[in-house]
């Protein structure tokens, strides 16, 4: 088939398209994946009694931390899911948020008596925190990958990295409703570690999964 004939054929397949398709599909993916992860948290892990938690400002610190990272992650995914858009300032914002959390955690460690530092840092759940966040990120990552594939990522590894980051940040936000820990040093380490692992794995998988 000559290229001119192909163009002729394509010109017969033109219909008005509604704008905003990328936003709609990505939001739907976040909602669907987030719902699955939330169901796992609520039914399997169980949420903390939220009314009691509402009285404890430090309980919400981890939720706020990961929610901010989610916003930065989703903004990056949105840019990388379609051709030609610059990634923009979102990754820088995410790095600054992580640094701020590190500073908060380090300050907390330093202001604690040396004998109590290790217990503060490890909490009760340091062994399971990062793996659980990684696991809970899976449904969201899977939904995001399906949505991004239907768009047009032109840098698959980067798009996968952003998807891994956004998925795990949202997963961590939902997990924070279960997590009993309240130490900034704990969150800065184990939450960040889980998200970092998902980010790296997301990039590696994205290289293959997001080529179209």
């Amino acid at each position: 088939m000559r290229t001119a004939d192909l163009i002729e054929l394509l010109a017969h397949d033109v219909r008005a398209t509604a704008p905003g398709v990328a936003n709609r599909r990505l939001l739907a993916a976040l909602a669907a994946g987030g719902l699955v992860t939330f169901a796992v948290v609520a039914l399997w892990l169980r949420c903390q009694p939220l009314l009691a938690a509402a009285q404890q400002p430090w309980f919400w610190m981890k939720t706020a931390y990961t929610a901010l990272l989610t916003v930065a992650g989703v903004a990056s995914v949105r840019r990388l899911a379609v051709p030609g858009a610059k990634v923009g300032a979102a990754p820088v914002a995410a790095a600054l948020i992580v640094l701020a959390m590190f500073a908060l955690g380090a300050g907390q460690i330093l202001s604690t008596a040396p004998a109590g530092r290790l217990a503060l840092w490890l909490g009760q759940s340091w062994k399971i925190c990062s793996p659980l966040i990684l696991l809970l990120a899976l449904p969201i990552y899977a939904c995001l990958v399906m949505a991004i594939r239907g768009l047009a990522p032109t840098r698959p590894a980067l798009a996968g990295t952003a998807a891994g980051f956004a998925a795990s940040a949202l997963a961590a936000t939902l997990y924070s409703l279960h997590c009993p820990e309240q130490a900034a040093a704990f969150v800065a380490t184990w939450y960040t570690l889980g998200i970092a692992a998902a980010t790296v794995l997301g990039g590696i998988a994205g290289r293959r999964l997001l080529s179209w």
Partner: protein
Amino acid sequence: MLQQDQTEERLRPLMLRSLEGDSGAHRQLLEILGRYLRGYFARRMGAAAAEVEDLVQETLLAVHLKRDTYDRSLPFTPWAYALARYKLIDHLRRRSRSIQVPLEDAGALFAADDPEEGALRTDLDRLLQRLPHRQRSLIEDVKLQGLSVEEAAHKRGVTAVSARVMLHRSLKWLNQAIRDENG
């Protein structure tokens, strides 16, 4: 830079009209893009130039099928360049392990055009033979006999809506078939 601004001013309105459903603008856009793609791929692929026209067709099909990912508030040429560069990398990667395609300004795509169609390795007509009879004959009516989709639908006794859906699905299928063929 100035030249690229002019290209942007010429192509973006065509893209916007194409997204509104204007098939004349869409045809014109693809014709212009095809010439630039041919020039860009030929410069980048060098020795493998036998595949230039194949890649032009594959990329035009991608531009067509993915055009709803273009954000109307942004410039068009970076969108087209990113898509062209991706198709080039994807194509080269399926041939050899390591490849380097410089990440350039969108101007790299629009530096020079080439209106002369080259030889093809993969004949899309041959791929289309694998489609079910109904879809294939619809495409032949539109392509060979120059019928509109409505006329072709009428001739084949299907509704215009289902003919449109059939055509669109066939093109999506074709997009996948090309990748499988070259993979």
